[in-house]
């Protein structure tokens, strides 16, 4: 140390400048800390954050329409807004090809189910049409192409076309149909090279050739066929589809199809806030279909009531515990922690036992002759049941933060206030209460966050009027299978929770969460 000069940089033991050496050691420390955290962070990102992200994605994803009816959607979109709503013959011809493939892959019912969320009746329309499309006789196309050139009947011709470079450009739909055919033949366990191409491929071929205006780059076979095609005898697909089901001539079906043809849609979110996406824009749903607004309001309202009840019940007992000697407070604490530690299902079943019509509370009331046998109170399967059971279940989450805040408030403050002439009430309200507000804030946000996402308890004691938005989400996931809507509802709920989470972090700090003891 003594031989370091005064004007040079301070050096560490190994001769490097001290500043750099310190920085390096700091970097090393940071790196080591991150290395310890990394496995868990990766784990949480994969098992927890990725699922949440997936849910967000699903709430807007709508690829199924475009994937199931690619040719039809491409034609409609090309027509743009000037296209008439019920499209022309060409589009129906493409629809035939799409539907044939979809029916072979059994995808048409899935699409029907998807569109049925937007307009009821489409599901059966698709199911019916899928069945009938397979039976529609379109052999006439194949025959005429064979008459032009017998090569068309040979699968090898098709294979060589599929392998040539420009055929996808010249005959896009025929090539798509051919490839789709190969795929599902292979999926059935057969070898497509040994099968004869199916009739519907020739429909696509005909459509392509009719639309083809520049044949200079095509080979002889295509040129020859393109010349002959306009004189072909054709099937009137529009008529055929309308015969399957007259809904195909209805503007509403096509409006729905066109509204939901985009790969991403805001439709689920609109649904989740009681709006609907029409062909012409957004509009509020008719009165009898508005359920989510009511449900969201009810969830928020009941969560507020539960939070208020928890404050009202939690405050006195937290105060009592905070103002008793430690030993006594610990004994009282057990009464709070025992329910906290008891299984949620146990507490919920206990409330079912207590509240039902033949339950403990009603029995006691009858025994005391407060109500008669016929007038037993309905305490369960309504909002009352949910509020009582959930207040009980969430009360410890209010008491624990309140208690930890109240424990730190010195008793001398209220004594000082009283010695200065304050009444008991003034001393409490003006001196004690303001100091306990952080505890109320922390507990309230915690209880509120927990209660708006509650599922199990409302499901069991809530009946139909005491259920929350989460019950609806669960219903859409497991019963109605409308996952997109479930994801949209979940996303809205998530946004509310994140907002509250942020507030909580601001007020309390996330790492200050206390867990009993």
């Amino acid at each position, binding site marked *: 140390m003594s031989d370091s000069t005064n004007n040079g940089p301070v050096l560490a033991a190994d001769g490097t400048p001290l500043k750099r050496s310190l920085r390096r050691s700091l970097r090393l420390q940071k790196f080591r800390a991150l290395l310890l955290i990394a496995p868990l962070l990766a784990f949480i990102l994969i098992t927890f954050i990725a699922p*949440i992200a997936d849910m967000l994605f699903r709430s807007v994803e709508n690829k199924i329409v475009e994937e199931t009816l690619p040719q039809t959607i491409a034609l409609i979109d090309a027509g743009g807004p000037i296209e008439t709503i019920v499209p022309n013959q060409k589009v129906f011809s493409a629809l035939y090809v799409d539907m044939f493939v979809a029916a072979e892959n059994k995808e048409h019912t899935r699409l029907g189910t998807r569109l049925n969320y937007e307009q009821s009746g489409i599901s059966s329309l698709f199911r019916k049409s899928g069945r009938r499309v397979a039976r529609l006789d379109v052999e006439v196309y194949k025959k005429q192409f064979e008459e032009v050139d017998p090569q068309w009947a040979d699968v090898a011709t098709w294979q060589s076309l599929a392998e040539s470079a420009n055929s996808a450009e010249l005959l896009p739909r025929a090539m798509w149909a051919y490839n789709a055919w190969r795929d599902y033949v292979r999926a059935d366990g057969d070898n497509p090279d040994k099968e004869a191409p199916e009739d519907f491929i020739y429909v696509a071929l005909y459509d392509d050739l009719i639309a083809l205006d520049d044949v200079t780059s095509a080979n002889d076979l295509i040129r020859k066929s393109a010349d002959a095609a306009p004189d072909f005898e054709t099937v009137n697909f529009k008529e055929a589809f309308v015969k399957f089901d007259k809904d195909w001539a209805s503007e509403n079906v096509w409006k729905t199809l066109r509204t939901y043809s985009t790969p991403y849609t805001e439709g689920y979110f609109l649904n989740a806030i009681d709006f609907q996406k029409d062909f012409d824009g957004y509009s509020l749903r008719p009165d009898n279909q508005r359920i989510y607004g009511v449900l969201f309001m009810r969830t928020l309202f009941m969560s507020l009531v539960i939070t208020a009840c928890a404050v009202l019940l939690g405050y006195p007992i937290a105060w009592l515990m905070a103002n008793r000697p430690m030993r006594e407070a610990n004994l009282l604490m057990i009464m709070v922690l025992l329910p906290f*530690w008891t299984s949620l299902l146990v507490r919920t079943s206990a409330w079912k036992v207590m509240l039902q019509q033949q339950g403990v509370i009603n029995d006691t009331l009858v025994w005391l002759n407060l109500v008669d046998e016929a007038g037993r109170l309905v305490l369960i399967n309504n909002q009352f049941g949910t509020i009582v059971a959930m207040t009980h279940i969430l009360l410890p989450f209010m008491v624990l933060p309140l208690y930890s805040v109240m424990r730190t408030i010195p008793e001398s403050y209220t004594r000082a206030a009283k010695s200065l002439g304050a009444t008991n009430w003034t001393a409490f309200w003006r001196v004690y209460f303001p100091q306990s507000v952080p505890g109320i804030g922390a507990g309230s946000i915690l209880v509120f966050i927990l209660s708006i996402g509650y*599922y199990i308890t409302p499901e069991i004691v809530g009946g139909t009027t005491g259920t929350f938005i989460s019950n609806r989400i669960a219903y859409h996931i497991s019963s109605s299978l409308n996952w997109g809507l479930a994801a949209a509802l979940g996303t809205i709920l998530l946004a509310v929770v994140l907002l509250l989470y942020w507030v909580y972090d601001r007020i309390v700090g996330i790492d200050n969460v206390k867990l009993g003891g």
Partner: protein
Amino acid sequence: MNAQKIENPIVVSNQLVAGGGAFFAAVFGLLYGMTQNIPLIGVIGGMALGAVAAFAIVKIAKSRRISQFGMVALGLIVGYLQARISGAIIGAIFGWVFTWFVFWLATGKYRRRLPSYATPGQVLWHHTFVVICWAIFIFLITPIIVVMPLSFNAENFFTFTPAMLNFDPAGYSLKHYEDFFTNSDWQGAIKNSFAIAPVATLLSVSLGTLAAIGLSQPFVPFRRAIMAILISPMIMPLIISAAGMYFFYSRVGLQGTYLGVVLAHAALGIPFVIITVTATLVGFDHSLTRASASLGANPVKTFFRVQMPLILPGVIAGGLFAFITSFDEVVVVLFVGSAGQKTLPWQMFTGLREQISPTILAVATILVVLSILMLTTLEMLRRRSERLRGISPG
């Protein structure tokens, strides 16, 4: 006892003693009167008898022990004549509490917590407040207590039968417990629970402890953001976690598999491990690891020989939290699992929703006993941890 009695002489007036006794007995009389449809007579009778009894035991018997014995015996006999065994029990309890109350009043103990200048109004308010608090405690604890006797019901009801209320042995049976231990549904469920929870706990404890040690280093970049991500599974509503996991796990083929449920439960348990272990590490003296290093121990040895024993209570507590989270979890397993992963809470949930069977109450009782054990363990761990850190337990 005698010495105590001398220290607590009767200090209040005769009117107050009699009034207190009258009040207490009137409340009881009101309840009794209501069951017999004669509430008014109950109140008046209770008041009269209560005043006389209170006066008698304070002024004549004087000894609290003798009067308590006498009153309990009296309550037993009168109760038994009224309503057999259940009446006798209520009577005895009433006799005991009544005597305690009268002497508590008469010896002036009721002012123990209050300053000597408190006005009667303040005294009354204080005790009303305490009664309200006790009512809330009773609200907290009753549902859990009620479940226990009902689980011994001989009938397939969720309610007390007359035979149970009369303590008729025929009204009680262990058949719901028997059902629990023999029914293959319940046994399968408990096996699944014990197959899932420990593995999920192990996963979250090992990863969580490592990360908590990392997080408690003095310099951690993005500490706040990382903490927020790691804690998020605890704050996120379960239905959202469940929905997201259901969508994502079915995409990657984990939905309906054992591994999927374990991973999901481990993720849910991690915040608890992080919180408890970081809390323990706050009090950890880092010079100990430096001392260990200076004595030649490598970091791994330092961890296992110095750091681990000191933070072990926190780790075990975190593990308990994680275990309980997984063991008690139903929403996520409902969606992520399939019939092959049906856990105990899931079975209870279906039991509550579909076939209402009192076997649930037997399971509930077992779980309550388990949670009492768990609570005791945690309390002991907390005390040990405080002792280790040199803080005397409260």
